[in-house]
């Protein structure tokens, strides 16, 4: 991992997360990330956007695409033990780390990222898409992530696929991530994310688009009309996370039975969750209710 492509500036971060007893090697990184997402923001940190981030975006539209206008998830760190209501038997299930809030990258990005970001911005301008559609660019571990506005996702995908300088012909993967916690403790802003991995076969590049959603309003436009392969990916994301892809031709469950309640890969859905039934009517409680360690 070349250091110059790392967007998070570890030097400026004050480790506030305490010493990690068993992972000193990775402790510095962890502490830096923790500081970035924890309660003590760095000075000038745009990550900790105000609640009315929408208003801030309006001001920024057309000015810069690379500021950090994305509301940051935040969650305080909590202790390890005393965990209830999950199937976790490791004894460490109560460990709650702060929400992951990657810092926006700063120029120069290094590698092909600078050229690509310029081409992308130019393509957006040509097509009349507001630059505010891209809320943040993060470069981490040699991978570039664009945090984008959900209403723009279809236009962005179309641009990325069709523009001659971009040519992302293949949509490798679409999936969800739930950054919330099992017991709902700690308020994570927009905890549901939909992640798009696009691949350019022409230029041999990979990028990631990420859309953050509120659980109460988990809607995002479907990209099936741009990438037909998104059909099953979006059905799986609906099935597992309950994200509604508006405009999908047939958004039905794909892995779980059609009459299933709930969306199993949300963090507030327990591991197990339903009783295990045997022939003859015998029934044992679901795995997450069987034993208590505290």
């Amino acid at each position, binding site marked *: *991992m070349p250091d110059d492509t790392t967007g998070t500036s570890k030097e400026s971060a004050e480790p506030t*997360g305490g010493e*990690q*007893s*068993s*992972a000193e*090697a*990775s*402790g510095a*990184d*962890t502490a830096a*990330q*923790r500081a970035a*997402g924890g309660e003590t923001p760095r000075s000038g940190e745009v990550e900790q956007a105000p609640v009315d981030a929408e208003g801030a975006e309006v001001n920024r539209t057309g000015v810069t695409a690379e500021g950090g206008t994305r509301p940051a998830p935040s969650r305080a760190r909590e202790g390890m033990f005393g965990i209830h209501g*999950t*199937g*976790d038997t*490791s*004894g*460490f299930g109560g*460990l709650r*780390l*702060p*929400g*992951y809030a*990657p810092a926006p990258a700063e120029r120069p990005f290094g590698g092909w990222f600078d050229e690509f970001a310029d081409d992308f911005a130019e393509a957006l301008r040509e097509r009349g898409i507001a630059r505010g559609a891209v809320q943040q660019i993060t470069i*981490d*571990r040699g*991978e570039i*992530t664009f945090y984008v506005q959900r209403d723009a996702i279809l236009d962005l995908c179309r641009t990325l696929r069709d523009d001659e300088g971009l040519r992302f012909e*293949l*949509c*490798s*993967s679409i*999936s969800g*991530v*739930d*950054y919330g916690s099992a017991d709902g403790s700690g308020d994570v802003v927009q905890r549901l994310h939909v*992640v798009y*991995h696009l691949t350019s*076969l022409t230029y*041999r590049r*990979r990028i*990631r688009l990420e859309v953050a959603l509120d659980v109460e309003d988990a809607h995002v436009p479907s990209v099936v009309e741009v*990438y*037909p*392969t998104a*059909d*099953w*990916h979006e059905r*799986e994301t609906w099935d*597992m996370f309950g994200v509604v892809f508006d405009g999908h031709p047939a958004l039905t*469950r*794909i*892995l*779980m*039975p059609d009459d299933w309640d709930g969306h*199993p*890969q949300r963090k507030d859905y327990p*591991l197990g969750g339903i009783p295990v039934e045997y022939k003859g009517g015998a029934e044992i409680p679901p795995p997450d209710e069987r034993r208590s360690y505290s």
Partner: protein
Amino acid sequence: MTEPTPTPAEERRTTEGSVYTVTGGDWDTLIDSDHDDRIVINMGPQHPSTHGVLRLVLELEGETVQQARSVIGYLHTGIEKNCEYRTWTQGVTFVTRMDYLAPLFNEAGYCLGVEKLLGIEVPRRAQQARVLLMELNRIGSHLVCLATGGMELGALTGMTAGFREREEVLHLLEFLTGLRMNHAYIRPGGLSQDFPAGWAEKVTDFIKVMRSRLPDYDKLLTDQPIWRQRLENVGYLPLDGCLALGATGPILRSAGLPWDLRKIEPYSGYEEYDFEVPTATEADCYARYRLRVAEMHESLKIVEQVVKNMEPGPVMVADQKVAWPAQLSVGSDGMGNTLEHVRKIMGQSMESLIHHFKLVTEGFHVPAGQVYSTVESPRGELGFHLVSDGGTRPVRVHVREPSFVNLQTMPAMSEGGMVADVIAAVASIDPVMGGVDR
């Protein structure tokens, strides 16, 4: 001689029309003026020709497929969810069970992702061993594809031959890793242990055996007229269709694009090895069959080079905060910790015991962030999207399974063709339902 009177097919009425349960010998009772030629057939999930627990719903007009849809989920085991409740190392034992014909690819792809998150690189010997194992596994997986594909098309000798050769692969993998399947041998940071003594001879013998047997497939199938008639110009999917539907692996390469991640984005030192990426332009089932046979020969070439170039050295990173503390060995009661290690942690060093306990129960911390790492599995791009919040367990493990994505091409390959060609198309996609459903 009197004709046996057929028992009428069982009938029940639904909102969509009548549903008949046809058991064979009773089709005559359905052919009358009341019914048109259009029928919807449910095939699977328990059917010998659907390549696993895959359910196909086919709308037929006579014998022509008007619409085809696949129904999946019968083997969903919640592996992605389970991974979130275990440490990063324990995740290996879950992901190895997804695509059960290519377990070592699952392990390698997952471990490469974890290593990218950790920012570590595994020792050279571990990289070479991974390449060796993956290529052996690729041969085994392609053999099963030929075997089950042959069985589904009625070429039973192809099945017995394919499974016989695959047994050689499994024997060798058992010798090298300890298990035939679900190895959990590749771990974040390297391998669980080094190869046993005498591995090079075993692998060399294996190469010799396979070199003598692989040409038999050309004799048995490649130019056999029935095999060609069943596969040629069947299941056609051109390049633009492949890209739109996300197909990778042999399907994409059969349409003419030499897209192989081992060459495009080399990992684990694949750039060192001399091998070809076979391609074809026919984009049909026969081209995919030929590519798989050719890929097995290329894999043997890579295995041969690994055996020649493998250097002694550690197979696990030196960082004791990541490396599994125990040195494993085979004792009288099976594999376990070496006696020296047990003596050390129980009798000599309290700190070692604490370290061992912490690393095994709690696991190592992975810096927060997300990565997408890919390997070229026998079926195409196998991608792992891993998210960490800095803890000892993943926030999210998403697997971009090539079987899952490639299976979407089934309707495009089959609609407008004959029912029998659906079977050929599904066999050429080679979906493994454990991977599709996860």
